[in-house]
Structure formats: structure tokens, C-alpha cells
């Protein structure tokens, strides 16, 4: 005689059945590769991805942590992350406020912001690389015609300038994302609080700082974490604009991992780098979850 399952047992079974295919895929192509990377990082492989491996324990990590190139690369990645995300937040918030003030043309502006966001990263990079071109680029052409420079400048031959110009391209792409998120958040804020404060004599700056900004905090934090994770792993835009150059001057941590694993054939070292990136991401993901699921909201 078959036992009839209770409703809640049926639900549990159905739930597991519905989630099972997705779970298998996620475990197979995300979790398994991370663990496999950890395993590969314990070996030395000096001649390409499919060559013989020698067990070296934590040797690759030891080598990395005592290598100046690693720390310079981390520093450069942090520079990119902090400067681009910082500027993007400030500009994004400013544009969101501008739209929220509903000046003439605000709807057209809001629609227009979707364009840079939707342009594929590689197209974005290619476009800016051409704008920065030393001999025929639009940046040189424009600055020269405005009389701001007296001869064309080879923008991408100096590492710091090259990095800052990559940041500019990234800003063009990402500011709209932040502006649109924050603008949507602004639209949901109650207006009466600010009006009451205005009646009580708070000036515009005080209303912004003490009322609007705290209310926007959750949206800002979400945008901040998402953009930080993305900026820290920047690869595509650097690959197209500078190719890591000049003289490896714009190589970030993802780029270094790519070079070690696929160009230099140091797969063990590449795996160690890639596992360190996973660790950083997990820490950021943890922070993100804490922000999204605060105890009082459950």
C-alpha cells in the first residue's frame, strides 16, 4: 500500500525537482571550477595549460605574495576600482538628481542614458581607442582646434595617462547605469519629508545631506558593491584600449591572470591568482548579501 504524501511533503519534493537542473548546472560550471582552480594552484605548470604538473603545495601563493609585480598590479587594480567607481557614483548621483529635478528635456536625457549602457563593452573600448589615437584621434583634433594643446599628444604611451583614459571610457559606459538606478530610487522617495524640512528652514544642501542621502543609502550601497566587483575584475576594456600596455603599465589583476595562464603558460600561478580573485569576490558577495538582507527586513 502506498503512503500518501502530505501537502508540505509534496511541495518540498516539487521544489527540489524544480531547482535540481539549475543546481546541477551551477555546481558543475561554477563551484566545481573554483575548487578545481584551487587544486591546480597547488601545482607548477610552466609550459602551457595542458603540460605536466609538479606538486608545489602553497608555493605559488608564496611566490605571488613576495613578488613586487603582484603588489604593483594589485595597487593598479585598486587605483582603477577606486577612481572609476568613485567618480561614477558622484557623477551618477548628480545626473540622477538632475533628472529628478525635471528640467526641460529630462525625459529625453533619461532615454539617452540607456545608449552608453547598452553599447557592448568591446565596441565602447574600440571607439575610445580610436578617439585617443595619437595621429588622427578626435581627442587630439578637438583639443588642438580649441587651442588647448599646440601639438598632438600620444595619449596611450604613458602608463598613468593611459590608465586614466581607460577610466574615462569606463565612466562613459557605467555612469548611466548608476544614474538610472539612483533616479529610479529617487522617484520612490516620499516628497513630504523634504517639504516639511524646507518649511522648517532647512536649506537645499541640508535637505540633501540629512534627508535625501540617508534615504538613498540602500540603493547607493547596492550600486557601489556591484560596480566594485565589476571594476576589480576589469579586463575587456583594457584588452581593447591598451592591450595592457604601454610596457605592461595598465595590467590589472584579471589581465595578469590571463597573461600568466594563457600567454606565459604558468597555469599554476594563474590558478593561484584566479583563486585569490574568487576569495575577494566571495567577501564582496557576503557584504552584498548583508546589505540586501538586513535582519529587520526579513
Amino acid at each position, binding site marked *: 500500500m502506498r503512503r500518501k504524501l502530505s501537502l508540505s511533503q509534496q511541495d518540498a519534493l*516539487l521544489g527540489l525537482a524544480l531547482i535540481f537542473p539549475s543546481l546541477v548546472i551551477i555546481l558543475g560550471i561554477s563551484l566545481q571550477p573554483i575548487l578545481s582552480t584551487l587544486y591546480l594552484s597547488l601545482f607548477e605548470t610552466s609550459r602551457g595549460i595542458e603540460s605536466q604538473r609538479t606538486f608545489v603545495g602553497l608555493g605559488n601563493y608564496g611566490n605571488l605574495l613576495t613578488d613586487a609585480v603582484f603588489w604593483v598590479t594589485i595597487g593598479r587594480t585598486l587605483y582603477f576600482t577606486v577612481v572609476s567607481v568613485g567618480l561614477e557614483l558622484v557623477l551618477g548621483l548628480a545626473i540622477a538628481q538632475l533628472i529628478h529635478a525635471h528640467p526641460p528635456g529630462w525625459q529625453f536625457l533619461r532615454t539617452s542614458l540607456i545608449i552608453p549602457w*547598452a553599447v557592448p563593452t568591446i565596441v565602447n573600448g574600440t571607439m575610445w581607442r580610436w578617439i585617443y589615437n595619437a595621429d588622427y584621434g578626435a581627442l587630439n583634433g578637438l583639443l588642438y582646434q580649441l587651442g588647448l594643446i599646440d601639438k598632438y599628444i600620444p595619449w596611450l604611451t604613458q602608463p598613468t595617462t593611459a590608465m586614466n583614459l581607460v577610466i574615462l571610457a569606463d565612466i562613459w559606459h557605467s555612469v548611466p*547605469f548608476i544614474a538610472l*538606478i539612483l533616479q529610479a530610487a529617487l522617484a520612490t522617495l516620499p516628497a513630504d519629508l523634504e517639504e516639511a524640512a524646507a518649511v522648517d528652514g532647512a536649506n537645499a544642501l541640508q535637505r540633501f545631506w540629512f534627508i535625501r542621502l540617508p534615504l538613498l543609502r540602500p540603493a547607493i550601497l547596492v550600486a557601489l558593491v556591484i560596480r566594485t566587483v565589476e571594476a576589480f575584475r576589469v579586463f575587456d576594456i583594457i584588452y581593447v584600449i591598451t592591450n595592457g600596455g604601454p610596457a605592461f603599465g595598465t595590467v590589472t589583476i584579471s589581465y595578469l591572470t590571463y597573461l600568466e595562464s594563457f600567454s606565459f603558460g604558468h597555469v599554476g600561478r594563474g590558478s593561484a591568482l584566479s583563486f585569490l580573485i574568487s576569495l575577494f569576490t566571495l567577501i564582496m558577495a557576503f557584504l*552584498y548579501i548583508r546589505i540586501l538582507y538586513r535582519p529587520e527586513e526579513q
Partner: protein
Amino acid sequence: MKRKPLQTLLLFALVLLVLLFVYLPVAWLVISSISTRAELLSTPIRWIPQNPTLQNYINIFSPGRSTSEVAKTFRITLWNSFVVASSVTAITLVMGSLAAYALIRLRFPFRRFILLGILGTRMIPEISLVIPLYLFAAAYRLLNTPLILIITYLSFALPFAIWLMAAFFQTIPIELEDAARIDGCTRLQTLFRIILPISSPGLVSTGLFVFLTAWDEFFFALIFTSTVAAKTVPVAIAEFTGRYVVDIGSMMTGGVLAAIPPVMLSLIFQRYIVSGLTAGAVKG
């Protein structure tokens, strides 16, 4: 609150400034794609082409004898991108909405743990997965096939779709579902007849984000594909720069063509993009 005319004027000037920042680079991209080679390489720079030409577009859509190899194969890479992005979108929509429904509405062991795990997986960068995935692809002879791109794109697309659909399902009142159950619908009938139809905005939004992300993807495509059999548009565009004679015109034309589908889709489905972003979408 009323504004003084001067204030309105100032705000309007700022709007124009932002619009310039948005449109100038795009305008230059389009202008470069319809300029002749001679004009592109002229100093001082010419902003408006004297002899606009669609030759670069013709080269891509009906390549002649003298057309460069990259331009000749560009059409095929557009098709590859389309196949990969649509397959990924279809798979993630089906699997993602089933999984999201289970996570939001059904009680089962480890539910919360799985939900948070998926949230975390969504953020794992491709570089952290690529070495073992490459070994896997090489072992099963999947390099240079669209299939390996479809499989590996699921690593970011599926957690993302589950999470976004979960956010949409959460906004559907549970009373609706209870009513359907009282009327004698089973769980699955409720899902397919009630929940999915009213979550169609969520499905559109999720599908759109997944499609755009897959269309945009570069790193896996760079590592896993090098022949026309599976190479996608971003890789093809990056290859224009790799040659020692850089054909700027073709490169910019490729850029315009690669940007048209995502830009048009985003503009047409604007409403869904904004609702997706507020649900906390991840494509940045």
C-alpha cells in the same frame, strides 16, 4: 516648489552638457564608419565627411575580392553571437523561472542556503572559472563550438536569471495563488496558468538582460573560440585592432553593427530595463 527662470536655464544647460557627453563619442563612431579612409587619416581633423560612403557596410554584407578577411567573416560572427545569445536566453528563462518559483514559494530543505549561494555565484568573475573550463572544453573537443559558449555563459546567466525572476515572483501577491489552489489547481498548474502569465514583464526583463549580457560577453569567447565556426562579434571587433594595418573604417562599422541590436532592444523595452535595474540588475 517653483523655480526661478535662471535656475531652469542652468539645469537645462547641465542637461545639454550630459547629452553632449553621451552623444559625441557615438556620433564619432557613426561618422567614422561612413567616412572614406583618406578623410579619416587627414589632419587637421574633418568632423563632417565630405564624401560619406556606405562602402564599409557593403564590404561586410556583400564582401568583394579586395575585402579584408575580418570584414568578410563579420557577418558570420554576427550570426554566431545571435545563436549563442538566444540559446542562453531561452535556456535560462525556462530553468531560471522554475528554480526561482521553487525558491520563493515552496518550502524545502536548504532553501535559504541555496538562494544565498546563487546570489553569491552570480558575482564570481569569469577569470576564476576559465582554466578548468578550458581544460574541460579541450578534453571534450568543444573548443571553437557555439556549444561551449552556451554552456559556459550559463555560469553567469543562470544565477542571474534565477535571482531576477525570484525578485519578480516576490512581488506577486500570495492570495492570487491561494485562490487558484482553492479552485483546485495543482502547484504546477498554478505556476503555468496564473503565475507565469502575470510575470511576463519579469520574463521580458530577465530575457532582455540575459540576451544583452551574452551579446556583450568577450572573455570566454576570446579564450574558447578562434575560428569562424564559433567566434562572436566582440572577438571579431577586437581582431580588427590586432592587425598591423588597422582598417579604422571597417572596425567602426563593425562597432556600429554590434551596437545596433542591444541599443535598439534597450530603447524599445526601456520600461523593462528600468524595472530590471531597480530589481537590482547586475549588468553594468
